[in-house]
């Protein structure tokens, strides 16, 4: 494993060292806001000590990234495959237009989490949030799964405008008392056993990653949000 000390280095230097490292395993120490770490990589396991900057793992193509602290905005932007594990919270636009792979956040996520996520056949993105999320969760969502686990059992776990423009995918919210208004494009139901079966393996993996009890999470009640239609704007237009 190559150890890279990030102290007093800018992102171009850090990213270059990661990209050109001959080792598959790379450990970054003293990371402090360097952007784009792991951008587009497919063959690395990157462990980060400290707080990386924006766009961590953008266009990620199969690499694994583990962060021992929180991350900033746009983590996993347009990622394709791989896994990003965050032992803390994530900033805004987590998993923007993510098209595959997994982002597991231990604590909370900011605004616009999972915005424009989309799935296609074997490319199927998953975002798991341990705590709660800001507004615009799953905005324009077109595919994949977002799970908000609400590990602290709070009342308000999503903000305003959740699922606005959603036309694909599913959002699971672990709460029995859902305190939110949803837009007309979104259908909200209590998740059935079948529904939960779909996320079981991710919950087990998540619980394993963060050393928590999966059984408690699996036996809880979830609400599931789905789009009403795959063509939400069909009736909006008239030909001129």
């Amino acid at each position, binding site marked *: 494993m190559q150890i890279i000390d990030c102290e007093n280095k800018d992102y171009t230097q850090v990213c270059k060292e990661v990209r050109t490292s001959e080792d598959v395993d790379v450990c970054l120490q003293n990371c402090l806001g360097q952007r784009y770490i792991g951008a587009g990589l497919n063959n690395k396991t990157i462990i980060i000590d400290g707080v990386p900057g924006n766009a961590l793992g953008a266009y990620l193509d199969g690499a694994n990234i583990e962060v021992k602290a929180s991350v900033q905005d746009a983590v996993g932007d347009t990622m394709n495959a791989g896994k990003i594990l965050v032992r803390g919270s994530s900033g805004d636009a987590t998993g923007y237009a993510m098209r595959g792979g997994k982002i597991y956040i231990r604590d909370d996520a900011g605004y616009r989490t999972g915005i424009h996520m*989309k799935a296609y056949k074997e490319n199927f993105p998953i975002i798991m949030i341990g705590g709660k999320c800001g507004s615009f969760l799953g905005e324009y969502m077109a595919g994949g799964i977002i799970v908000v686990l609400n590990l602290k059992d709070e009342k308000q776990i999503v903000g305003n405008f959740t699922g606005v423009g959603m036309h694909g995918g599913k959002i699971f919210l672990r709460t029995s008392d859902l305190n939110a208004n949803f837009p007309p494009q979104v259908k909200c139901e209590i998740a059935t056993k079948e529904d939960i079966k779909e996320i079981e393996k991710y919950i087990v993996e998540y619980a394993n990653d963060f050393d928590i009890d999966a059984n408690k999470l699996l036996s809880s009640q979830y609400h599931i949000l789905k789009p009403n239609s795959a063509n939400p704007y*069909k009736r909006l237009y008239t030909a001129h």
Partner: protein
Amino acid sequence: MAINMVEPLYEVSRNATRCINCRICEKECSNLVHSYDENLKAMISDETKCVNCHRCVVMCPTHALKIVKSDNCFRENANWTQDSIMTIYNQAQTGGVLLSSMGNPEPFPVYWDKILINASQVTNPSIDPLREPMETKTFLGAKVPDIKRDENGDIVNNLPPQIELSTPIMFSAMSYGSISYNAHSALAQAATKLGTLYNTGEGGLHKDFYKYGANTIVQIASGRFGVSKNFIEAGAAIEIKMGQGAKPGIGGHLPGTKVVEDVSKTRMIPEGSDAISPAPHHDIYSIEDLRQLVYSLKEASNYKKPVIVKIAAVHNVAVIASGVARSGADIIAIDGFRGGTGAAPTRIRDNVGIPIELALAAVDKRLRDEGIRDKVSIIVGGSIRNSSDIIKAIALGADACYIATSALIAMGCHMCRSCHLGRCNWGIATQRPDLTKRLDADEASQKLVNLVEAWTHEIKEMMGGMGINSIEALRGNRLMLRGIGLTEKELEILGIMHAGE
């Protein structure tokens, strides 16, 4: 029953003595205008469905058909025109947003047509491009003002990545989805033969076209359709679409009906699902945020590809372009308000944005005034109709031009402006297999090659006439232009003198 206030805009004029009832027009018309009446033993037409695309006119073996503008009229009114009245009927009936296609058709001034080009007489002799070398080769990308040398005095190549074009004409972004597989294939083949580039648009890149990568610009828009590591690395350059001239300020929306199996594979979304690109990139709210996307793409492509940022020509375009130039973009593409589209709300298309001529002049001046013109190349599009438009654009400061509507017309488009219906009879703006097969990709690519070669030759002739033998010497050379019938303010913005001065 409510009355449907649809009145036909065109009449199908069928010459009965020529018509042989072969029913070819019926087979060719995807709008179902023509049919055969068994009782009358003759062809009849339902003109309310006609979009005036001329497919039947061209295919009629006996030339029995022509489409004429209906002389059916409302009471004359300079304010309440027929279109104003009929759009109200339409919206009162449907409650829908008016949707139309292709560029702004309204009679706004076309500044290209009010600019004249210079030529040499007596002094500074003109050059004959048939006999003398004439350079149209163009390099796009950030230039560095300082030459660096190593300890031996040799020049160190510190030039950021460049695009090399044989001629300053590229094919502008049109997505696979908005146009057909064969149309994309024709553009890719033509760009390769010509030594220029075509642009994927925001719909991803079909697997069959990766082989044309060296002549491809891959585009990334807010929906990020089909964007993957392979896609980012596939082309010669990466374009971030911030805006489009036909619909500044709004996003894209490919209706589910056009997301057929193959389009779904390329966009990487399920078949039949709407492909929605929101108006903004939701991670970009500032120049700093744009810089983040630019550099994330540079990181992901290992700094080997120039990054283009495409913006629509809007009121503050010069200031915006200055910001874009400082975001790390290598190239700015500016799209004027006459730029085409596969679908845009009519009111936005016809009323939002400004002409490319004024936008280009303003941007070039602003960047020069700020001393950052070298940091970026400028591509302009938004209705480049011929080679003299290109000469004028380059003399106003553009490095290269984007053409799209012209390219579609070269492939057979008849400008019926009905792309949004998805029933293009010419096999271009449709995904219906029975229609897409009407466009022969090889033949269409040859037409594109012919067009660009002809224009390039015309550009050389006009350059030669001015005594200029390299496109570099024409760039930003506004002394070669004069305005005609323009106000002082217009001349000031264009940075040119009036004819006779």
